[in-house]
């Protein structure tokens, strides 16, 4: 087989492998256990967009909580504010971090199975990612 033909085949294989990658990868997932006195948890992780186009996360859902919202903490002039985020854009090939003191999930209305939590990330009606983890542990 000639070298140019081999190179084309290798590139095609690489493209096929890449196209099988999930569009959204998650790392460092941590769901805090609800604190005494409330049924609320926080979610922290890193989301990486493996595609060549921006991904707009419009909703995060969980069968283990009544409500899941994306929030962001800001501290401006010494005032801490928490605001809901309607959507999060993960640019092509980049990573967005949800971390303490910044963007985070607020999960409320913990159900009886909230020690094992499943999160589902949607872009519109499209489910991009579903992942489960135990609360209080970082994956």
């Amino acid at each position: 087989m000639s070298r140019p033909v081999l190179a084309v085949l290798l590139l095609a294989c690489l493209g096929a492998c890449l196209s099988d990658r999930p569009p959204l990868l998650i790392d460092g997932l941590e769901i805090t256990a609800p604190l005494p006195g409330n049924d609320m948890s926080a979610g922290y992780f890193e989301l990486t967009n493996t595609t060549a186009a921006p991904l707009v996360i419009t909703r995060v859902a969980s069968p283990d909580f009544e409500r899941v919202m994306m929030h962001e903490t800001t501290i401006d002039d010494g005032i801490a504010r928490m605001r809901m985020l309607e959507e999060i854009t993960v640019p092509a090939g980049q990573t967005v971090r949800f971390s303490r003191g910044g963007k985070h999930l607020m999960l409320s209305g913990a159900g009886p199975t909230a020690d094992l939590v499943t999160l589902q990330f949607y872009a519109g009606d499209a489910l991009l990612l579903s992942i489960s983890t135990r609360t209080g542990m970082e994956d």
Partner: protein
Amino acid sequence: MHAKQFLLIVLSLVAIACGAWLSYQLVAPSAKPGTATILPQPLALPEFVLVDQHGDAVRPDDFRGRWSLVFFGFTHCPDVCPLTLQVLADARRQLAAAGESPLPTIVLVSVDPERDTPEVIGNYVDYFDTDAIGVTGDLAEVQKLTSGLGVFFQRAARDDDNYAVDHSAVVLLIDPDARFRALFSAPHEAGNFVNDLPLILSGA
């Protein structure tokens, strides 16, 4: 000894002394508070009456006799409040491990007394530090305390009961004479308290 040799020896000694001084500055712990803002004049607490997690009254005089690290937050805060309380608890543990005495008491004053009943706030603070105190009560009394200390809080507009409360992220240091002595601005790290508190408490 030639003058040149003498000068060389003097310059060498000066260089060694400068190096030692610089090394000490870089390596030795800070000799004065590096993060805390100390008030030029301690400020007496304003008059207020709230309750602790046991339902017992809390007034300014109840801060006498101990150092207190006071944070204004609420239990339905999923991020910055537990983060801050964890930092304070970690700092207290590190101070205890270092043999520091007295240890400050962690006090959480609720800016959401509607949801933070004494039982709720008591269970909450106990999670972080079993010696911590949770303070709640009448909203007007909370406002007396916060406005007297320059602390801000405001319920964020939302129709349901999942509202958030915007609030100052500062941690206040109250001295054993029940006076506002110093403050720590966010973002908070345990090391800031571990370094600065012994210096402040010793009068540095």
